[in-house]
């Protein structure tokens, strides 16, 4: 088990990189997922169709395949996803700005894939609001946007937050794939490096990596439990 102490810096580095991509992907997926959710509940049929098509494609395709597309199709199309080299942001998340594009490709894949699940979590919250609420808002003359903003969303987020949390936890675990798509040095790739290249025993390394993921997922899960309990009390 000494590897946990001796190679602490490698684990910590891996943790930091995985944490970075997870924060960025969570923000991206929440934003994109919200947009797709609005499309899916919009009163305009073509927009609804677009939203539904998006969810159908990305919810039903394995993340590995999405990663393949992102890592191979984007370069084939001549893109290095340079639009993600956002000034200032690339100072904090240094991998965003590097010449090697794989961090950006992996981020795109994670965002695209997770957004489909975020959309459905948000939509399940919207569906939990009684249809009479939206009807009353429409009958007052509120537009679709006003209806969402003032009536539906303030009531739906409570029902969305727990499924959303589960989606983000799944995303954190899914991020373990990025090491196989050219991203050097994330938490999972640490295993490869320490066991393959440096000859450490696998089990202690795996324990170290597990601890890394648990540090991210367990507090998130605990937070969700708290929110859920508070809601259960509020509902009484």
């Amino acid at each position, binding site marked *: 088990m000494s590897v946990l102490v001796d190679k602490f810096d490698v684990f910590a580095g891996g943790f930091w990189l995985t944490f970075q991509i997870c924060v960025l992907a969570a923000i991206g997926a929440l934003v994109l997922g919200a947009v797709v959710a609005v499309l899916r509940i919009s009163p305009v049929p073509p927009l609804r169709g677009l939203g539904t098509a998006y969810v159908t494609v990305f919810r039903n395709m394995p993340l590995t395949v999405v990663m393949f597309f992102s890592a191979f199709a984007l370069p084939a199309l001549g893109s290095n996803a340079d639009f993600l080299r956002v000034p200032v942001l690339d100072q904090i998340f240094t991998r965003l700005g590097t010449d090697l594009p794989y961090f950006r490709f992996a981020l795109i894949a994670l965002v695209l894939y997770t957004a489909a699940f975020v959309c459905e979590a948000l939509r399940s919250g919207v569906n939990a609001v009684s249809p009479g609420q939206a*009807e009353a808002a429409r009958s007052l*003359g509120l537009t679709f946007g006003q209806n969402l903003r003032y*009536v539906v969303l303030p009531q739906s987020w409570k029902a969305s937050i727990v499924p959303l949390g589960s989606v983000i936890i799944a995303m954190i675990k899914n991020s373990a794939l990025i090491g196989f798509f050219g991203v050097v040095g994330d938490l999972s790739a640490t295993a490869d490096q320490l066991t393959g290249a440096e000859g450490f025993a696998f089990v202690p390394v795996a324990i170290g990596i597990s601890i890394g993921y648990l540090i991210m997922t367990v507090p998130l899960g605990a937070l969700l439990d708290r929110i859920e309990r508070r809601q259960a009390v509020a509902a009484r």
Partner: protein
Amino acid sequence: MTDEALIVLENVNKWFGPLHVLQDVDLSVARGEVVVVIGPSGSGKSTLCRAINRLEPINSGTITFDGQPLPAEGRALAKLRSEVGMVFQSFNLFAHKTILQNVMLGPLKVRKEKQDVVRERAMSLLERVGIANQADKYPAQLSGGQQQRVAIARALAMQPKALLFDEPTSALDPEMVGEVLDVMTSLAREGMTMVVVTHEMGFARHAANRVVFMADGQLVEQAAPEEFFANPRSERAKDFLSKILTH
């Protein structure tokens, strides 16, 4: 009441799948008129009421409100809806907003009126329906009758040209029906144009200018209330009245 028609339905048809819920319905409601729609359940009364502000889109025919055909989904429809108040069977007060906020939301967001003007009007409307002292409570803290009176105040806050009532007392405990009907009766007396779907025959008798009887998606007969209750012409209406008036 003037003779000028405010709401006109011509040849309106509506299907729910294979079910023909509105069959060639023609109806004209004059400004200031109170029309009560009665009939057995499943006769299409509620659908008729909801079609007037396009909460239910119709399949064919035309509906005009104040001379304008109902617009398709979008801003124009939202504007039309803001001029037609609606009161629902299940109240549908915004659960996350206080009573006062419920009444103020439409004027503030749809009409963009000033906060203090709206607050004053909302309070006087709540005063009128007898719930001003509950203004800061949430809907769930009120009784059904109180909630429905708030819903009426909320609709009135938009200063609508007409009010639609979709079975406003059907979800209420019997002792609360009266307080809601009292508010509706006073509105009728003041000349508000109203379309009321209800099972309250007492209200139909004393507050309606005209009773419309519907069965199986058709508008079977319409007459002044005295005439309709004393001498229903159709067999269907006689049958309906004999069932509800014998108890």
